[in-house]
C-alpha cells in the first residue's frame, strides 16, 4: 500500500498516513494535507500546497501599475475589494497621492460589506462542515443581498476590480445608499436567528469548545492574524492600529477573546459582523460630495524605492510590498497573504486532537486556498 508516491502508508511506529484532499469538501478548495494518525489521533500534519499556484507575483512584474491590481481579485476571492484596496493604497503611497474623501468613505463601506459577506459565507460553511445544512441557506440569503449591491455598483459579484489608484473606478449607483441601508436593516434582524440556530446549539458547542487550542505566544510566533489571532487574545486589528481609508473616522470595537479554541474563533467572527454593520451605518449617511477619483497620469510610474501597505482583510493581515526601479511596472511585488501564515499554525492546533476535530479547526481558521497559493 502506498501513501504519497513511493512512500509506505504505515510507518515503523505503527502510524497510519492518510491524504486529506486535495478534493476533500471541507478544505474549501484544493488543500492537500498529509496526516500521520495513531488510531484516530492526529500525530503530525504536513500541508502540501501549490495546486492552484499561478505565480501572480511573477505575472505582476510584467503588468502596469493599473493592471496588476486586477490579478489580486483572484487571490482571496471572497475579499476582492480589500485586495484591490491594498494594492491601490500601496501605489498611492508611492505616488504620494491624496485620495478624495468621497472615495475613502466608499472604499471603507465596500470593505466592510466585503467583510460581512465573507463572514456570512464562513458561517454557513462552518455549519455545513459540522454537519448542519440549514445555516448555509440562511447565510446565502443575506449574502445574496450584499452581492447584488456589488453587482449594481461594479458589475461583478466576485472579481470586482473597483478600487483603482487614485480612488474608485466610477461613482456609485444612485440606488447605493438606499440599498445598503435596507440590507443593513435586513441583516441586523437576522443575527438573532443566526444565534438561535447555531451559536447556542449544544452539538455545535460540543464540537467547538476546547478544540484546536492556539496560545497567544504561538499565534504571534506563527504570524497568525485576523479573527484567528484575536480569538487567542492577540490584538492585531490594523483598522485600529494602522488606520487607512476612513477607519479613523468611525467608532468600533476591536473584538478580542481569550479562549483560543474553535469556539472563541467562532464567537469573534459573529461579533465582528455586528461591528461591520455599525461601521457601515456610521458612514452610509455621511458620504461626502465631490470627486470619486484623484487625477493620475495615463501611465503610472512609481519613483525608485520600496513601498509597503498593510490592510485588514476578513482573514487577517494582507501586506503588499512593491519594489520599484522607476519603470512602468513593478520590479518585484510580494503579497503577504493572511491565509498563508494562518495555515502554518494548523499543524500545532490539530496535533494531539482527533481527526474529526480537524475539520472543525480548518473551518474556524477560514482558509481560502487561492489566497495561500497565489
Amino acid at each position: 500500500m502506498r501513501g504519497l508516491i513511493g512512500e509506505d502508508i504505515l510507518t515503523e511506529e505503527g502510524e497510519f498516513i492518510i491524504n486529506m484532499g486535495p478534493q476533500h469538501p471541507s478544505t474549501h478548495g484544493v488543500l492537500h494535507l498529509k496526516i500521520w494518525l495513531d488510531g484516530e489521533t492526529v500525530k503530525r500534519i504536513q500541508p502540501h500546497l501549490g495546486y492552484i499556484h499561478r505565480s501572480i507575483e511573477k505575472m505582476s512584474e510584467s503588468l502596469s501599475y493599473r493592471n496588476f491590481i486586477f490579478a489580486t481579485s483572484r487571490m482571496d476571492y471572497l475579499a476582492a475589494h480589500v485586495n484591490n484596496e491594498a494594492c491601490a493604497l500601496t501605489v498611492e503611497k508611492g505616488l504620494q497621492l491624496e485620495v478624495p474623501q468621497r472615495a475613502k468613505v466608499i472604499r471603507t463601506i465596500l470593505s466592510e460589506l466585503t467583510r460581512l459577506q465573507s463572514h456570512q459565507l464562513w458561517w454557513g460553511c462552518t455549519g455545513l462542515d459540522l454537519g448542519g445544512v440549514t445555516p448555509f441557506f440562511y447565510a446565502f440569503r443575506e449574502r445574496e443581498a450584499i452581492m447584488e449591491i456589488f453587482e449594481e455598483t461594479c458589475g461583478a459579484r466576485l472579481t470586482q476590480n473597483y478600487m483603482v489608484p487614485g480612488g474608485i473606478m466610477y461613482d456609485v449607483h444612485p440606488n447605493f445608499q438606499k440599498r445598503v441601508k435596507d440590507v443593513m436593516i435586513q441583516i441586523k434582524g437576522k443575527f438573532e436567528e443566526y444565534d438561535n440556530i447555531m451559536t447556542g446549539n449544544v452539538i455545535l458547542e460540543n464540537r467547538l469548545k476546547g478544540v484546536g487550542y492556539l496560545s497567544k505566544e504561538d499565534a504571534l510566533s506563527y504570524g497568525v492574524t485576523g479573527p484567528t489571532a484575536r480569538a487567542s487574545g492577540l490584538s492585531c486589528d490594523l483598522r485600529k492600529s494602522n488606520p487607512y481609508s476612513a477607519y479613523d473616522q468611525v467608532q468600533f470595537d476591536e473584538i478580542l477573546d481569550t479562549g483560543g479554541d474553535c469556539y472563541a474563533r467562532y464567537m469573534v467572527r459573529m461579533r465582528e459582523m455586528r461591528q461591520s454593520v455599525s461601521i457601515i451605518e456610521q458612514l452610509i449617511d455621511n458620504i461626502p460630495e465631490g470627486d470619486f477619483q484623484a487625477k493620475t497620469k495615463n501611465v503610472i510610474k512609481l519613483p525608485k524605492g520600496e513601498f509597503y501597505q498593510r490592510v485588514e482583510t476578513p482573514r487577517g493581515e494582507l501586506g503588499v510590498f512593491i519594489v520599484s526601479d522607476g519603470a512602468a511596472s513593478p520590479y518585484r511585488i510580494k503579497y503577504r497573504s493572511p491565509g498563508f501564515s494562518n495555515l502554518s499554525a494548523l499543524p500545532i492546533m490539530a496535533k494531539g486532537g482527533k481527526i474529526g476535530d480537524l475539520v472543525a479547526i480548518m473551518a474556524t481558521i477560514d482558509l481560502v486556498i487561492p489566497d495561500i497559493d497565489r
Partner: protein
Amino acid sequence: MSTEDLKNSITAILPSSTFDETGEFLNVVITSEELLPLMNTLRTKSEFDFDFLFCLTCIDWKDHFMMVYHLLSKTHQHTLVIKAKIADRNNAQIETVCNIWRTAELHEREVFDLFGVKFINHPDLRRLFLSDDWVGHPLRKDYTDENMISL
C-alpha cells in the same frame, strides 16, 4: 524606541551595518553572515523585543539577492526592516530564522522554491508550491520557460 534610538542601538551591536531611511520604515543593510546573531538579539533583548515577523521575502537584483525581513514589536510598537545581502548568486545560502519566529518556516520554503536560496539548518527545506522535479526558480529575473508569454 524611536528611529534614532534604534539606529544607535544597532550600530552599537553591529558597527558594519548601514542604514537607509528613504522609505516608510528604517532599513538596516547587513551581509548574510551577520544575520543570525543580529536577529537573535533583536528578538531576545527586551529593549527591542521584535516578536512579530510580518513579512519575509527576497529580491533578485540580478547580481545579488537581498533577503528582506519586516519586523514589528507588539510591546514597543516599533518597526524595522532588516536586509541581508547574499552576494554569491550561484550558491545562495543564508541561516534560517525559523527557530526565532516559527512563521519563517513556510515563508523560507517559498523563497527556496521560487528563488533557490538555501536556508542553513532549516528543518524541512523542500519546494512548497512547485513539484519536486521542476527545473529552475521562477521569480529569478533570468528564469525562462518555453511556455512563457510576454503580455
